[in-house]
């Protein structure tokens, strides 16, 4: 009634007519604009769903290098690639002369979007209070417009696992692409894995001058028996809830958040990422994983090289922690962290590198290169930032290599992808060219003006 009243009033009618005419006019005016301002070729590009990167050296990772070839992209996917590819005329062509095309890199463990400025707690969202937090989800706090994301992207990283940290059960990690206008637009896998942190080799985290410390470290044995109990409780909880659903006379257990959130884990649907460190602990966790029949991924494994065969036999993939660290034990040798990835790889363990950071996420390729300096094969290093993480996360049908049918996550570099001096010229995420400007370039441009104004 009220609405009809307003529309029927003559003033509003006039306004509507005005808007209609003005709107049409705008359309008439705006229509010729593309033709007058843009070249013919570009207007054709818009019409086409196809795009081609031509004259480019291609490292598909999945197959042999193509010294000079073409990548044909249709919408968000790679349609074809090869050295003698016939491409239809009239599509957008990107000249890749002097550049090398690589699959975009995947950071296998990061805090991108959860930690902005680590020393300012108001900007830190990766560490929940308490020890058991299977209910918290990284995706639900992910700051999609983090200043660190465009910087990582400008170094050739197109996707990241973002993980919470702290306590025994840190929470649920997420797999995201580094592009999107909201956190939800970034999702590849909303919940990728449950993150479990076992005690470090040097013992538990201590606070600074008695402030901010966690409770004294529990042993790995104790932590695992605690997990076992929680898992059993969750299984029992499910059984009793199901039984109660069938039989109204049976008592129905009250809602229990931890048991509820652990269900996908005990059912083997949601993998567990174990942050595990010493050789002894690794063996214990292998046994635990086999007994509990859960899907597991190892993280950090600083002494993994000592039990590489056992990890390999168990078929558990390993995500390397940051190589920017010191060996946990002096006796392991000064280079143990650098040797570890190569030795694991040689034993047949599937490895992936991680930045384990947000502000240094862009350094992902350099961790891989460091391992090469200490024995890891170059192509294996490249795989450990592309196809191996995709396989570990179960998204290798979508990404991780340049192959027809996969998402067009492509990086064009002016040199070796893992090399320090290499510049990334273009990045495509799902076929879209993303903006490589970032806080570094923006601040530089802003303050360069001072010099230029003189």
């Amino acid at each position, binding site marked *: 009634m009220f609405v009809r009243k307003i529309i029927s009033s003559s003033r509003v009618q006039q306004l509507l007519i005005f808007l209609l005419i003005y709107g049409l006019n705008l359309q008439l005016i705006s229509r010729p604009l593309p033709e007058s301002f843009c070249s013919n070729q570009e207007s054709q590009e818009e019409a086409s769903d196809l795009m081609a990167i031509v004259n480019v050296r291609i490292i598909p990772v999945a197959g042999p290098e193509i010294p000079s070839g073409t990548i044909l992209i249709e919408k968000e996917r790679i349609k074809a690639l090869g050295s003698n590819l016939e491409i239809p005329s009239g599509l957008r062509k990107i000249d890749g002369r002097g550049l090398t095309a690589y699959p975009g890199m995947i950071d296998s463990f990061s805090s991108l979007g959860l930690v902005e400025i680590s020393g300012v707690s108001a900007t830190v969202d990766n560490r929940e209070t308490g020890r058991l937090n299977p209910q918290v989800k990284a995706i639900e706090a992910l700051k999609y417009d983090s200043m660190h994301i465009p910087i990582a992207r400008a170094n050739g990283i197109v996707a990241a696992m973002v993980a919470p940290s702290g306590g025994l059960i840190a929470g649920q990690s997420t797999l995201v692409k580094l592009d999107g206008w909201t956190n939800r637009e970034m999702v590849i896998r909303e919940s990728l894995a449950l993150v479990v942190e076992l005690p470090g080799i040097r013992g538990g985290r201590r606070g600074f001058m008695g402030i901010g410390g966690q409770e004294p470290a529990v042993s790995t044995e104790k932590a695992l028996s605690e997990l076992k109990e929680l898992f059993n409780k969750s299984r029992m909880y499910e059984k009793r809830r199901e039984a109660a659903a069938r039989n109204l006379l049976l008592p129905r257990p009250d809602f229990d958040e931890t048991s509820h959130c652990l269900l996908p884990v005990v059912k083997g649907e949601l993998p567990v990422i174990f942050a595990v460190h010493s050789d002894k602990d690794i063996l214990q966790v292998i046994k635990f994983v086999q007994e509990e029949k859960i899907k597991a991924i190892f993280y950090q494994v600083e002494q993994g090289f000592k039990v590489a065969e056992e990890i390999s036999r168990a078929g558990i993939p390993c995500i390397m922690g940051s190589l920017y660290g010191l060996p946990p034990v002096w006796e392991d040798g000064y280079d143990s962290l650098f040797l570890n990835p190569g030795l694991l790889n040689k034993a047949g363990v599937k490895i992936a590198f991680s930045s384990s950071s947000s502000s240094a996420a862009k350094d992902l390729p350099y961790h891989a290169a460091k391992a090469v300096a200490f024995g890891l094969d170059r192509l294996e290093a490249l795989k450990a930032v592309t196809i191996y993480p995709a396989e570990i996360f179960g998204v290798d049908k979508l990404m991780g290599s340049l192959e027809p049918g996969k998402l067009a996550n492509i990086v064009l570099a002016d040199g070796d992808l893992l090399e320090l001096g290499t*510049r990334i010229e273009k990045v495509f995420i799902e076929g879209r060219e993303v903006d490589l400007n970032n806080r570094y370039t923006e601040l530089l441009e802003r303050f360069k003006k001072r010099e230029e104004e003189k």
Partner: protein
Amino acid sequence: MKVVISRTILFIIFVLALLAPESYLLAAGNLLIKNATILPVSGPPIPGGEVLIIDGIIKQIGKNLSAPAGARVIEASGKYLIPGIIDTHTHLALSGTNEGTDAITPEVRMADVINADDPAIFTALTGGVTMVHTMHGSANVIGGVNVVLKLKWGQPSEKLVVKEAFPTLKFALGENVKQSNRVLLPGRPQRYPATRMGANAIIRRELLRAKDYMTQWERYEKLKNSKNPPRNLLPPRKDLRLETLADLLRGKLYARTHAYVATEMVEFLRLAKEFGFKVAALEHAWEAYKITDELLAAGVGISVFIDSWAYKMEAAEGIAYNAAYCTRRGILVSINSDSSERVRRLFNEAGKAVKYGLTQDEALKMITINAARQLGVDHLVGSIEVGKQADLALFDQHPMSAYTRCEMTIIEGDVYFDRQQILKNREEAAARKGGN
């Protein structure tokens, strides 16, 4: 009888010499490094070059050099020889870092607390580092007197100190000194200063006090040296705190200040001008790219991270272009680690600058000759030149590549780190274990 004794002694010495491992027979500090690609930093690369070292000093650089008897020969074909890496800002090899109980503690000296057993010395050697500026921490506005060390692992602390280096006094500004990230416990009072205003004011206050102190002493000296000195003339009270600051004002000490944001750097340079003291470099200097004109005018260099940033508010505008852009503007830039871990990959940190606009040569300079200049030791080290001390590092690939690995680190002609030797030792140890 006498003759018999001396002959016996000679015989014993001879037998001992035979028993001693080979290395002891070689004169220390004598080396010939062959067939390396030499990156002298002071000039263009020398492929297939040789360096002859006698008594720890570079005697000859060239080709087909011959080693004198007793000199060790190192075959380095395919490898890169660079000047030993110099880290201009570390806290390693110290048994204490911060006298943070007071905002002003220039009386403390890092040379008093050198810990020659710190494993970080070895860690640094594994990354080709031969010299470090090891400093007081940034807990207070005026810290202590820093010290420059050569990383002669295994030697006593007094043998590590580089006496020729600039004596420097640590200053700190910003978040650390105003304690903005510190949890205040109930009952613990807040320390002055708690703002950047206070930090500047307290420096001015202390320097005015030091000036006053100097005047008191001048008056005393004048009276003492006058024709008729007063009979009960007493000297002013010695104050070690003010004595150190007086040395800064006399130009005997150089200031090195921890600073992040543009404003605090501009203001510190103004203080330096106001009181006429010398500034050797600004530490961290994350916003240096905003004030290149002021830095050039003051002739002050910076000692910075390449990209370690956003760990606190004042580091949130620290861009990875800082080092490269400031170098392009003509500012003397060195890359530091400020870490007993990062120190071993300082060459990787410098290498990153290539992405942000420098050549590999310029990047390498930031951890060698530029660092030496900032420490006042560029006449001794920092490049491979005849007459300089033989502080060198050998890498298996170009040191600015991500794929490189340090193979050997040499200080004054003595090998302090040798990766191949370590691998050999490991193999032997494994064989012993296997044999049991």
